């Protein structure tokens, strides 16, 4: 059983290269390799979650070297949860991407599948590793794959990706610098071992600097307001199937890494009492939620609107971390899950509309509700969830965040969540109004406006159904998986 943690990223890595070889022989085989690798990984992650919940944490020591000398891979409820989320969204978006990529970038399908697998390998690796430096390695694998994936969309996407390269590299470097400080203060890179040694050094300036660097670096990577400037352009100009993969999971995994630092590597009190880290994250996030939501209202391009909405939603996660109480952490982690489903669904729909009509501007979507009923029903579902209407899952994470705000007596945060729900309603109902109420625009060819092919529609509907299902079973997820995670906060 102890081999389960390593078997999550390894199939993705190996199939990336099997896919390269197969793709050189027959282009279409790369897709099969990508699908198979992700499916195996999802299976292992699911098995891992089940085993971890019934039998406790799993540890795997790479190369047979015991920690703290060797690299340790740990599967606990939180990392298994993240790995399963990443691989599930990865699999769904991969199924979607075959038609989408053949349409948008027929020449480059093989490298794109390979890069997607490497991205997923990096992200699952961040989830399962128990080593600070190994986390950096996976962070770079994921980031490099993401830079390349985002850059292939065309001239504008290359520019946007370059900006992301610069800021992302700064983020990665800051994280590494922080890890370096921890290493020369404690002499260890193993997370569990560092957690043992760090409390004695909490007064040390080197450790304080390490915290500042790590939080700033991961903040850049997770696009925490106001470090989000790279995100809107990068998401807008990336190919649909890429934006659909990166937007839902990438920033979330870095949020997970931040939670890991907060709960596992350092003691929570160091972040919320000794240093005002959670306060800073919380207040910046609160500002980010409102400002990014308002910016989202101002956008014409659907993809850009969704990108700004992503900034706001990541800030929700930041807000939950910033509240630093058990309910806030549950809200933040549940929102990682819920938002992944919602944002994947929305980006895939934006890609689906673009696939059929080539349109991206919201005013041109007038009258599409009648012509693409299933797609638009899924859009409505995701939009209602984003606004936070039960029983869609988006309601529950906001509910926990509001409860956490009340618990902490922080009325400003409660107000921010409620106001932002209204702002969400404004920018999503603006789209719904165009889609369902306005008549079709002149100049939009009616025969082009139809449902995307089944291969693209099915993932959209699966995610839309997932939004409802997650809403219904959220109690199970919270009590079984997330509640134990918040143990250090109680």
């Amino acid at each position, binding site marked *: 059983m*102890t*081999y389960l943690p*390593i078997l999550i990223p*390894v199939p993705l*890595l*190996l199939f990336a*290269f*099997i896919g*390269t*070889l197969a793709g*050189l022989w027959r282009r279409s085989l790369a897709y099969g390799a990508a699908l198979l690798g992700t499916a195996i990984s999802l299976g292992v992650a699911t098995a891992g979650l089940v085993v971890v919940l019934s039998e406790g944490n799993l540890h*795997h*020591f*790479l*190369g*047979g070297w015991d920690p703290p000398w060797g690299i340790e891979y740990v599967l606990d409820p939180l990392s298994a949860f993240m790995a399963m989320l990443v691989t599930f969204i990865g699999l769904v978006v991969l199924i979607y991407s075959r038609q989408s990529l053949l349409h948008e970038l027929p020449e480059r399908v093989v490298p794109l599948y390979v890069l997607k697998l490497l991205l997923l390998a990096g992200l699952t690796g961040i989830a399962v590793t128990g080593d600070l430096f190994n986390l950096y390695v996976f962070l770079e694998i994921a980031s490099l794959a993401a830079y390349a994936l985002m850059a292939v969309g065309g001239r504008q996407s290359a520019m946007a990706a370059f900006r992301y390269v610069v800021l992302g590299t700064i983020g990665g470097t800051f994280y590494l610098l922080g890890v370096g400080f921890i290493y020369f203060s404690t002499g260890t890179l193993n997370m569990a071992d560092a957690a043992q040694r760090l409390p004695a050094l909490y007064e040390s300036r080197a450790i304080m600097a390490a915290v500042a660097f790590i939080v700033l670096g991961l903040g850049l990577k997770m696009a925490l307001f106001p470090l989000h400037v790279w995100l809107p352009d990068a998401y807008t100009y990336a190919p649909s199937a890429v934006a659909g993969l990166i937007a839902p999971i990438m920033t979330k995994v870095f949020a997970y890494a931040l939670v890991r630092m907060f709960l596992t590597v350092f003691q929570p009190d160091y972040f919320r009492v000794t240093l005002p880290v959670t306060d800073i994250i919380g207040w910046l996030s609160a500002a980010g939620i409102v400002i990014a939501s308002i910016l989202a209202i101002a956008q014409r391009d659907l993809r850009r609107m969704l990108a700004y909405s992503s900034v706001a939603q990541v800030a929700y996660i930041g807000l939950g971390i910033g509240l630093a109480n058990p309910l806030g952490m549950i809200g933040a982690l549940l929102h990682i899950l819920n938002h992944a489903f919602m944002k994947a669904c929305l980006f895939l729909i934006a890609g689906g509309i673009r696939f059929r009509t080539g349109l991206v501007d919201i005013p041109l979507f007038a009258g599409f509700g009648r012509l693409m009923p299933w797609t638009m029903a899924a859009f409505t579902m995701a939009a209602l969830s984003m606004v936070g209407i039960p029983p869609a899952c988006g309601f529950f994470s906001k509910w926990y965040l509001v409860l956490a705000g009340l618990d902490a007596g922080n009325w400003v945060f409660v107000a921010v969540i409620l106001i932002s729900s209204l702002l969400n309603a404004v920018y999503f109902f603006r789209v719904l109004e165009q889609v369902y109420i306005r008549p079709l625009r002149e100049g939009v060819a009616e025969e082009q406006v139809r449902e995307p092919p089944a291969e693209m529609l099915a993932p959209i509907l699966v995610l839309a159904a997932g939004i409802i299902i997650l809403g219904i079973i959220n109690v199970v997820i919270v009590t079984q998986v997330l509640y134990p995670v918040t143990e250090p906060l109680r």
Partner: protein
Amino acid sequence: MITRYESPIVEVVCRVIVPFVQVFALYVITHGHYGPGGGFQGGVILAASFLLLRLCLGGELAHQKLPPRLAIALGAFGVLLYGLTGLVPMMAGGQYLDYGHLPIPGVSGAELRYVGILIVEIGIAFGVLGIMVGIFDNLVERQS
């Protein structure tokens, strides 16, 4: 357009040097696990020999020696070799990358780890070779 620099001197020198460079690369690769060197360094030297051919002989002739697609395939094969060397000990009851559990008959203990790391170094060398040549081919590829 990017073309080779046509000169008989450059060509002859290149033809003489390349075999020596490659032999030296093999030396560096196979000595990596108990001396200075290893898969990364050796792989780069090996790649440099093929890049020298591409620079001196021009695309068509050099591509016969190592076609661009073969370079990519070698790179992928190298990384796969590394990954599978990690996976095999796990199936034999050890941990991932635990060379002490490689099921190779006739060797055990330190010697087995020695063989394991050698296989990994060879994998790395292929990987680096593929990537270096791949990057070069990509950069000089004619814009269509």
